[in-house]
Each structure stands twice: as structure tokens, then as C-alpha cells.
């Protein structure tokens, strides 16, 4: 049972959502936006997350788009992960999405909810970081569109009252050769020990990682080590491992040393796979 009370409101437009947020905030309700809405239950139940008002974005058409506009793919923040998988407009995203939670949970978990999640794995962001997508956000200052790599630093850096509307990706990136590997401590569903996504674009390998640190990231330093083709794969992987951000997770899913060992093997596989393909 969620041990606190909240109002639940479902606006139909972007503007209405922001107006509601501002009013409820001024009333001291600490409003939150939701897409799938599972965290209000999973974290609310444990008193980790509190709110006096929930603004459900699911009825806003712009948040639910799944379209191709010219040479771009637009995916709304409220699209459930299984809907994106079934349509499969971005195969790397499908691979990443299919590894999140389990099939039934993914009929509720959304793209926007996963990317903005408090639970820090946020695995669905990895493909967008690699594809250098743009995110459209709405807030008190109106709508704006920014590169995801500028806005995503550990989490999507949103100002008060802002929310993710949709994510836009060049079709050429959705078709680029990719690699995706998720390793778990046990079972075949749920949180990762470590997850690595790779993409080959313009001749270079791009890499994004979740489960290594308490946040997902893409690292230029790691990528420049991996793309240094004067060295052997082993040398490149080993210098990439010197560039890891911190802290490295050391928890019940696995020790820091085990995570680095696993990452080393995954990176070798990633390089061998992606260097074997032309793009």
C-alpha cells in the first residue's frame, strides 16, 4: 500500500500539464509527472518517493507519438517499452528494451519513465546516447529541443516543472550496426550486473554503459581508447578500463572487481563484433 495520499490528474495538452504543475507546486503539493507510473508505486510503497499530486502524461498526444518524419524517428516519452519493441523502428533500442524488467512489466514501463527513472539503471537511454538523438522537453518556458548528450548527465537534467515529450533520432543512426550485451548475476529478467551498448557510426565505435556506476553514461575517453587502431584489441580494452568514471558499483549484484572483469570481456567482444562490419 502506498502510505501517503495524492491527487491524480490526467491533462490532455502539454500546456495544461505545465499549468497544473505550477499550481500544484504553489500549493505545496510537490507534484510529479508520470508516464508508466510504476515508480510511484514501487518507490512510494517504500517511502523513498513522496508526492501530494501525480500528473499523468499518458493522454497528451505528443507524448505518445511513434512516427517517422522525413529522415527522423520520433518516439514519445509515454510509449510503453513493449509497443516500441513490437514496432521495432530502432533495432538497438529493441534489443536494449527487451532486456529491461520482464515482458508484462514492460507493457507498463515507458521510454520516458525509464530514462527519467530514480532507479538508476535507465537502460533505455543507452541507444539514444549512441545515436546522438535530440530530446524535446516542455516546461514553464515552453517547448525546446536539445541534444540528449548535452542534457543527459547521469540523469536527464530537467528544470523544475519540465518534462520529456519525445525523442528524435536520425534514421541513419537507427540502421547503424550495433552490439548489445546485458549480464545479470542470476535469472534472465531484471536488473543488470552490467549492460553495454555499442554502435558503429562514421567508421568509429561508440559505447554506452549501465550497471557499472550508479548512473548510465557514454564516455568519449573510453571511445577514443577503443578506436585507437594502432594497438591490439587487448591493449585498447585495457587502456579503456583506465578511463572508467567512478564510483564503480560494489553491491549485491556483484563486486566492483567482478564488474570490471565482466566489462573487459564484453568490450573485447564488442570491438571484435563491430570492427568486423563495414559502415
Amino acid at each position, binding site marked *: 500500500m502506498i502510505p501517503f*495520499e495524492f491527487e491524480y490528474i490526467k491533462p490532455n495538452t502539454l500546456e495544461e500539464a505545465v499549468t497544473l504543475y505550477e499550481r500544484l507546486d504553489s500549493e505545496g503539493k510537490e507534484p510529479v509527472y508520470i508516464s508508466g507510473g510504476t515508480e510511484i508505486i514501487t518507490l512510494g510503497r517504500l517511502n523513498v518517493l513522496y508526492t501530494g499530486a501525480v500528473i499523468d502524461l499518458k493522454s497528451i498526444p505528443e507524448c505518445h507519438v511513434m512516427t517517422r518524419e522525413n529522415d527522423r524517428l520520433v518516439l514519445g516519452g509515454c510509449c510503453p517499452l513493449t509497443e516500441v519493441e513490437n514496432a521495432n523502428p530502432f533495432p538497438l533500442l529493441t534489443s536494449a528494451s527487451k532486456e529491461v524488467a520482464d515482458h508484462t512489466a514492460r507493457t*507498463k514501463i515507458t521510454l520516458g519513465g525509464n530514462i527519467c527513472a530514480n532507479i538508476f539503471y535507465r537502460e533505455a537511454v543507452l541507444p539514444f546516447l549512441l545515436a546522438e538523438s535530440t530530446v524535446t522537453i516542455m516546461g514553464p518556458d515552453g517547448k525546446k529541443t536539445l541534444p540528449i548528450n548535452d542534457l543527459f548527465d547521469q540523469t536527464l537534467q530537467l528544470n523544475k516543472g519540465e518534462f520529456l515529450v519525445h525523442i528524435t533520432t536520425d534514421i541513419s543512426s537507427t540502421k547503424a550496426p550495433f552490439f548489445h550485451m546485458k549480464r545479470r548475476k542470476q535469472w534472465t529478467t531484471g536488473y543488470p550486473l552490467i549492460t553495454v551498448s555499442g554502435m558503429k557510426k562514421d567508421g568509429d565505435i561508440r559505447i554506452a554503459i549501465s550497471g557499472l556506476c550508479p548512473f548510465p553514461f557514454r564516455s568519449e575517453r573510453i571511445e577514443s581508447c577503443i578506436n585507437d587502431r594502432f594497438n591490439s584489441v587487448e591493449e585498447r580494452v585495457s587502456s579503456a578500463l583506465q578511463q572508467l568514471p567512478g564510483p564503480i558499483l560494489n553491491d549485491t549484484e556483484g563486486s566492483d572487481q567482478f564488474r570490471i572483469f565482466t566489462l573487459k570481456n564484453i568490450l573485447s567482444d564488442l570491438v571484435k563484433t563491430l570492427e568486423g562490419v563495414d559502415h
Partner: protein
Amino acid sequence: MSIFQYVVLKINGEDRPVMIRSADTLLEVLRNELGLTGSKPGCLNGDCGACTVIVDGKPMKSCLMLGVEGTGKEITTIEGLQGTAIQQAFVEYFAFQCGYCTPGYIMNCQSLIENEPKATDEKISEWLKSNICRCTGYEEIETAIKSVLRESNSKDRPISRESEMD
């Protein structure tokens, strides 16, 4: 706007008016307000699948959904399934022991049959991994769902010339 809401939920084809807390999960509404206790509380955290129902044709863990989110949707609970092929197959293939996980499994299987009548082994496994059973070895559950899919697919097959002549 209030912390309580009067909603009308369409459950098993029937409109069910009910006053609920906005903070109640669908599972709590079904069990505590509407007396539909077939959906089982397990982990309450989205992990076990014991609470699975069907919402607008798709499987849904009712512990991961607020009751208020159910307005305007078609909700089916285990009480809404009567004499289906999958229920029959669970009995025939001993696909349960204590039975606690069974309603959740049946709802997920029923949704799979409706959405993916030609499901591959990979697809069946992907869907069924959403539920946990602490008693059986899963094999009996797999046999049950596969028997139903096989049976309905063989019925779909076009009638051959010989059988037409029989």
C-alpha cells in the same frame, strides 16, 4: 481533484462503480473494494506476476498500476475467464501445485494466446518469464500453454482435399 476518486471500472464486461483512493493500486481495488480476490498479492513490486490481469488485451501486473488508471479500459481478471482452453490445459497437465501463482500464469497465458497465436518457443519463454512459480518445475506450465497453441493452430490449418472428401 481529490485524494479520493469515484470511478467506474469496466471489469469482466461489467461496469463497476467504486470510490477509491488515488493511491490505491488496481490490485488493492480488485481485492479490497470489489471482492475479486482471484488476483493474488505476492511481491507487490512487479517481480512475481501473481497479480497479473489483462488490460485492453495486454497482460498487466495489477500491483504496478493505479486503480484510477483503469478508467476507460477493459479489465479482465481470472474471475472473467470461464472454461477456457488454457484453464483446461492447466488441469490436464498438472501445471500447478499450491495454485498461488496460477491465476497470474493463466492470465498471462490467455493474453499470449490472444496476442500471439503463432508464438515461437522464444516468444513463449519471453512472456512467461514475467511470472514466478515456487512449486512446479515450469515444465508443466510450458506443456500446458504449448498444447493450447498447438491445438488452436491445428484447427486454423486449411482443410486438405482428402478430408474434404471424407
